[in-house]
């Protein structure tokens, strides 16, 4: 599914990733943990194609394609989905209108027919109610005045509609209370399938109780320094990153 080889990347001349290697198989869910500033968010932005990051070395292959050559929207069409840590407000654009534009753009890219308003409405309402999302929320402008929990649920709703093959969850658990965490995790788990993979970026082990990963990687100083199973997360929670000889906040770039 995803193969990252010796990836070096920087932003405004500041080196952030320094030789990162990562392999993600079909159907696998990997967690990425690590101290603040270790480059976790950078990795997700790079995979999604956010402008401003420069790859100085290395390569990323996704389903056999050179991901770095694809535009942001084409990556989305190819099934790369980033659930944002801080979902962005779009005043005046209703959730429904945004979702429909998004879904139809992706369907068009995939050579599928665009959905009519009626078809879309039915689909979106179904998915929304599964995630406990109120209809009223879909009529409000995207993320405007949403609570932290609403924003994250809205991200998962978008994911459910776009049916990505590679989901990137960037600290999706931040700002969620226990109930919201469960709803969001259940929503994600319902999407798990043998042809879908995910990278789950988190600081805390508690998310991984709900979204059980196949592997856990520790990202520090710009590369993966440790890989293990679910137990690694438990151990880190208990002992801190100090057990790996690194300290939180060692790098300052977010």
């Amino acid at each position, binding site marked *: 599914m995803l193969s990252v080889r010796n990836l070096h990347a920087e932003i405004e001349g500041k080196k952030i990733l320094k030789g990162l290697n990562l392999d993600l198989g079909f159907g696998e869910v990997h967690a990425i943990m690590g101290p603040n500033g270790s480059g976790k968010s950078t990795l997700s932005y790079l995979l999604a194609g956010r*402008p401003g990051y420069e790859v100085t070395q290395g390569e990323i292959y996704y389903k056999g394609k050179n991901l770095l050559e694809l535009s942001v929207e084409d990556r989305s069409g190819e099934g790369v*989905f980033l659930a944002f840590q801080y979902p962005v407000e779009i005043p*005046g654009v209703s959730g429904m209108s945004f979702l429909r534009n998004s879904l139809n*753009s992706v369907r068009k890219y995939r050579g599928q027919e665009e959905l009519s308003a009626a078809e879309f409405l039915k689909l979106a309402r179904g998915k929304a109610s599964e995630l406990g999302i109120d209809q009223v929320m879909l009529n409000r402008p995207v993320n405007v005045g949403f609570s932290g929990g609403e924003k994250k649920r809205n991200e998962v709703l978008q994911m459910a509609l776009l049916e990505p093959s590679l989901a990137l969850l960037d600290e999706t658990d931040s700002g969620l209370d226990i109930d919201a965490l469960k709803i969001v995790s259940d929503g994600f788990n319902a999407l798990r399938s043998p042809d879908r993979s995910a990278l789950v970026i988190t600081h805390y082990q508690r998310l991984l109780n709900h979204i059980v990963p196949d592997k856990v990687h520790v990202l520090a100083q710009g590369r993966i320094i440790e890989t293990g199973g679910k137990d690694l997360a438990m151990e880190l929670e208990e002992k801190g990153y100090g057990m790996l000889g690194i300290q939180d906040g060692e790098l300052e770039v977010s």
Partner: protein
Amino acid sequence: MVEFAQTEDVVQEATRKDYEFGFVTEIESEFAPPGLNEEVIRFISGKKNEPKWMLDWRLECFSEWKQMEDPNWAFVQFPPINYQDYYYYAAPKKDEDAPKSLDEVDPKLLETYEKLGIPLHERAALAGVAVDAVFDSVSVATTFREKLHDVGVIFCSISEAIQEHPGLVQKYLGSVVPRSDNFFASLNSAVFSDGTFVYIPKGVRCPMELSTYFRINAAKTGQFERTLIIADEGSYVSYLEGCTAPMRDENQLHAAVVELVAHDDAEIKYSTVQNWYPGDENGKGGIYNFVTKRGACRGKNSKISWTQVETGSAITWKYPSCILEGDNSVGEFYSVALTNNYQQADTGTKMIHIGRNTSSTIISKGISAGHAQNTYRGLVKVLGSAEGARNYTQCDSLLIGERCGAHTVPYIETSNQTARVEHEATTSKISDDQLFYVMQRGLSAEDAVGLIVNGYCKEVLKELPMEFAVEAQKLLSVSLEGSVG
């Protein structure tokens, strides 16, 4: 957050699109001699077989105009205009009499309007919309006249109204915009060639949307249309105008005057989708749009609402205003002005509160991209007589890229202590975060910018009649191609 130079490039690319309506109709036209003098005015008046009072009015306006100077207070720059360089009258050649029915209209003209998305044949026309089609200096067709006539609504060209309804024209022409009001209004009063006349009788709710579609075709020609809409007691009308012009390298002149009169309990809703040729990406060519629009709420409880979506023209100089004379009368101004490349817009409104408990609302959205300059200029004036007057103004500016400008020049003058006047203003940019977020969801840069800008303008777009809201949304996206950041 880091600012990304790339975003601007993306937006540049997204906003670069050709002007869709830039074609020229090859049709034989008849012109007045070039330049402006008494003879030309007599020629225009003669072409229309006007009564003497009309010609005299024009000539008086002309002599007044000659004493006036171009206004220079607007935040727009352009080389001095030589008014002798233009043709003041151009009309498709035809038999002496105006076409009696659509079947007699030159097929080339019908085809032109078809291409512009305005089919004139009633069976193909937009349901519920009657159209007056003005081509250069003349009205070439007016649809659904019979149906409107049945309920007493007069919907015709101003030239016809001068012949058929001289009493109404004489009573109201120049009653809202005095002929010496300003340089461009005086020029228009002297040389106006055609435009639309609407009269809604007492108690009638006009059964369909009325619209005029203005097309400038001929080269070096000024269009000077004159629109007069009268809503008698207790009546209602919704009117829309659209405009386009071919792509030409020289600047063309458009100086219109629109006057609205609303009597007791009457309401006029006036919507504009202005898409004159804006010039090319280097600022060459485009229409100079110098327009005077004003409505008088003469009667109690009357209401005039202006909605404008301005995306075209090289220069826009336009302040649709309301004079709130009647007690409890209401004035509204909803505006989206979008400028890209080297376009300049100085636009806004005047709300003059005279009657008691008059109220006004101003919602202005200025969007500027490329090297464009976009100014909101407005006046809220509350006279001593306007006990209990209220105004709410909201001016928002959106900047796309690093080289454009947004300016807000609000004037507030109140002479009554009971008045309540509120003014809110914001300036913002499309953020890199927004663009990335929307594009990550599969939209191209072009579509992402269009979606964000349409959201930004929603408060105004929702005021447009349904039939035109969709068109306006598309227009905003297209006009932005190549200029947001």
